[in-house]
């Protein structure tokens, strides 16, 4: 599993990358009440804001960590946004991407580096 400075995790699943947010991020957000997901088939560039997470407190964005195509989104989040708090690392994945270049993942932190990063 890889981690971004924006507190996303990325897990390789075959030729796809599954993206979610870390436990640390979900704690910081507080209780999530609404998630807006992108359309499958959308081409995205690194940094594009593609999801919105609304917590009781505020709205935050999830940006595309890499260039690629959104191929699947987690519809369970639309019905049960609280999954983001309950199960951020498994059940609350946000989307799956097909990457233009898997080497893009090399730039991200591994788990130990991420733990140091959030200190």
């Amino acid at each position: 599993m890889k981690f971004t400075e924006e507190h996303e995790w990325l897990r390789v699943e075959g030729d796809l990358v599954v993206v979610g947010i870390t436990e640390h991020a979900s704690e910081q957000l507080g209780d999530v009440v609404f998630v807006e997901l992108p359309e499958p088939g959308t081409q995205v560039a690194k940094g594009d804001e593609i999801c919105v997470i609304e917590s009781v407190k505020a709205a935050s964005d999830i940006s595309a960590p890499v260039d690629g195509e959104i191929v699947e989104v987690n519809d369970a989040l639309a019905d049960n946004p609280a999954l983001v708090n309950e199960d951020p690392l498994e059940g609350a994945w946000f989307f799956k991407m097909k990457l233009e270049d898997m080497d893009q993942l090399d730039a991200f932190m591994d788990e130990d580096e991420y733990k140091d990063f959030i200190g």
Partner: protein
Amino acid sequence: MTELLRTDLYDLHVSLGAKMVPFAGWEMPVQYPMGVMKEHLHTRAEAGLFDVSHMGQVIVPLSAIDALEALIPVDIAGLKEGRQRYGIFTNEAGGILDDLMIARKSDHLFLVVNAACAEADIAHLQAHLPEVTVIRDRALIALQGPKAEAALARLMPAVAGMRFMDVAEAGWQGQTLWISRSGYTGEDGYEISVPSAVAVAFTQALLDMDEVAPIGLGARDSLRLEAGLCLYGHDIDTTTTPVEGDIAWAIQKVRRKGGAREGGFPGAERILSQLDSGADRRRMGLRPEGRAPMREGVEIFDAAEGGTMIGTITSGGFGPSVGAPIAMAYLPSSFREGDTVWGEVRGKRLPATVSAMPFQAQTYKR
């Protein structure tokens, strides 16, 4: 930057794991480890304890009643001893300078004003009345929720007999507490002014009870929003009149046209005329369809595409007890409950239904 003020309970909040944030010049707990959603639901189901010591506590002599009625369009002379009433300071244009609570006690009036406005309110009072005393050595605690009565009555049984908006005094550990059966969550409960000397001990005594949990400003905001109550500086301010703000109920008959003490407060001409013939716009409740919250600043339109911008959301978010997004906005008075309007959220127009308030039934013990 001026240093943030701390309430008597600051260290207690920190020891309870509160996340402290700057609020109206004070360092206040926005949430505890339980989190905003659970804190909100706990208050509705059991009893939530809030530190509201940042609000201003002011004593005014009874001799100033007439002078106070010249600043506040409320029947203060007719307020009975042991009772409290909601009031508003108005300006010459009929706008609202602040909202406040006014209690009549045996030999004085006790006022509680908003933290952000406290300095201005006190200056305003001092400019017009004699002998305004600002209380700086008392904390202010709110205990709210269906189990608030049982919890507080364990420490002082007499509070069980109080009705909504009653005020009383009670002794605790040799100190005198000032108690009102009121609050700002829509729940039954109390606000208790506690001498600093026993503020921590008293709060701890309540927190030691199973049904009482500390609740932060985050849940206080969602609770008052569900209760349809105004937050000063958001839902009401100097640009909104009491009629537009839908708090005209705070102006008793005696201060209205034809009343024994008609007018005589700042902005009376405009406010009395709006009481007669209505205002062009009014604060209304909105229930956004779907799950996306519409927050403060979201613009409201009268059509799904094109159309006209007809208002702006002044408070909005997710109502944990309602289980859906809720909001308040100023809309043209022609709009009615059940009408559909559209809020523009991130460039998309989403429908919302004009709705009655409160969103969550109030449970005051009248």
